[in-house]
């Protein structure tokens, strides 16, 4: 790859979120949730929604830019971009695409958004409820293997057995998210703390995942407004700059069924090096990490593949004390993340990374200057952004 880099060229101007609801509890239609989050991001930045000229989304979001433009009264739309991929693998890639468009001069004010009302449009995580199965699923469904939780569990089982990683490591990841959610009034699991006993006694969904290893199902929307570094000088908020951005996956990473070469993987092994090269930093420079929890086992592999921990150190590293904002070695998922704040397909984790660099987190990491936010472990493509404060440029 070349030496070209997005480093320092694009900044986050604003972030916006709706109230986060449990699945089915939003009083607003999904499209309205999206509008509210976008307007909130504009208010946060001090930029009129009419100035937006680019739209980026991911995960097959239903609320397309043409409808949004009409509703918002956008003067001209210059970018309409969708990041492919199932699940939330695009939650960082969506920002990468938006940033690239700004750097290329295609658009000036780009909103990256996700609106999701599972209660209105059906749930994720379910298998097809039919007796005759076609295509790839025909090779797994007859054996009782049909949901993402089940498919991903097999990657994690292999990884844990290869490296001797204990269940307690997954428990610590879950507890870190719940710990942080208790200080975050936006979090759906605020007021519902998790203890070791509660985790251990919770029901298995699919081993090695207990109930508390699995993301929630939610209704809501989130949006992030991107502008050029020059424009960022005039906004209301302290800008968070994109230092590096990468998405993708390795050789035949999605080879069906379970035939990928690098099988027990979060699929970041080829993505992370591009990220650090662009950002011109090393894993040791990361002050705080926000890692997409579809399932805790994916977080574990993601951190290892980003060089934040070695596999042989995992049992020592993945302990609650190391992962909390209040003095932990590497504070993780400081909003409560997908497990305990909201499952907005990971866009909330990107917002939390930005909040940490502004000094606005409800679990603020002291002097956080560089934040990493990764999306969608084990799917393809996966994506990550590294953000930095102005000091890091």
């Amino acid at each position, binding site marked *: 790859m070349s030496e070209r880099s997005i480093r320092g060229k694009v900044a986050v101007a604003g972030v916006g979120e709706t109230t986060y609801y449990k699945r089915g509890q939003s009083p607003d239609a999904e499209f309205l949730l999206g509008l509210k989050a976008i307007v909130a991001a504009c208010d946060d930045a001090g930029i009129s929604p009419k100035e937006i000229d680019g739209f980026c989304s991911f995960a097959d979001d239903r609320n397309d830019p043409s409808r949004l433009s009409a509703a918002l009264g956008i003067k001209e739309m210059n970018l309409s971009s969708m990041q492919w991929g199932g699940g939330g693998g695009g939650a960082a890639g969506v920002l990468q695409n938006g940033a690239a468009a700004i750097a290329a001069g295609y658009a000036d004010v780009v909103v990256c958004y996700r609106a999701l009302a599972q209660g209105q449009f059906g749930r994720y995580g379910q298998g097809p409820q039919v007796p005759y199965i076609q295509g*790839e699923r*025909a090779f797994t469904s007859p054996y009782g293997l049909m949901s993402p939780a089940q498919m991903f569990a097999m990657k994690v089982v292999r990884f844990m057995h290869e490296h001797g990683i204990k269940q307690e490591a997954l428990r610590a990841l879950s507890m870190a998210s719940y710990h942080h959610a208790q200080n975050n009034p936006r979090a759906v699991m605020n007021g519902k703390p998790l203890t070791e006993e509660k985790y251990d006694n919770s029901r298995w*969904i699919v081993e090695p995942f207990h109930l508390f290893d699995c993301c929630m199902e939610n209704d809501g929307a989130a949006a992030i407004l991107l502008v050029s570094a020059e424009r960022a000088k005039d906004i209301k908020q302290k800008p968070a700059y994109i230092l590096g951005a990468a998405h993708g996956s390795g050789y035949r990473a999605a080879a069906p069924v379970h035939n990928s070469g690098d099988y027990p993987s979060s699929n970041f092994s080829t993505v992370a090096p591009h990220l650090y090269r662009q950002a011109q930093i090393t894993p040791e420079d990361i002050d705080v990490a926000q890692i997409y929890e579809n399932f805790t086992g994916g977080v574990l592999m993601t951190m290892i593949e980003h060089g934040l921990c070695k596999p042989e150190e995992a049992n020592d590293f993945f302990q609650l004390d190391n992962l909390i904002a209040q003095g932990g070695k590497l504070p993780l998922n400081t909003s409560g993340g997908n497990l305990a704040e909201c499952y907005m397909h990971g866009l909330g984790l990107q917002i939390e990374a930005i909040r940490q660099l502004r000094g606005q987190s409800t679990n603020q990491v002291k002097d956080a200057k560089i934040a990493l936010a990764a999306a969608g472990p084990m799917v393809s493509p996966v994506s990550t952004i590294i953000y930095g404060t102005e000091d890091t440029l």
Partner: protein
Amino acid sequence: MSIIDPIELPVPYSVDEINREFWKLCSTHILHFQQCKGCGHWRHLPRYMCSKCGSPDWHWAPSSGKGVIFSWTTVHQPMHPAFGGKTPYASIIVEMEEGVRIVSQAPDLPIEDLKLDIPVEVYFEARTEDVTLPFFRVIE
């Protein structure tokens, strides 16, 4: 005890021709995979070109039927109504001697005995009149 209920459980139904051939060959009680005529590379799932050498030429070749347990998971919450009364059950991935991996079950292997690299061999069970599925048992 068989965990297979021929009436309720999902069965493969393929509109795709090479997928259909894979399942049809299972009725011979010999597991077959595609093998590339260009480079000899084995592949699964069925597909139309070799991802290694790019050749479109291939044939169905008999597998030794032997492999090792590559990974597994124990399912407690069923995601399909037909599996509702059957939990907990284990789904497994077998890495065959030919190098390809296949998802199946080893119904006679107790869940608590599952570990990596257990040698297993294929056997077949008819699910319906038209569909026969491969399963695995431990090689003693």
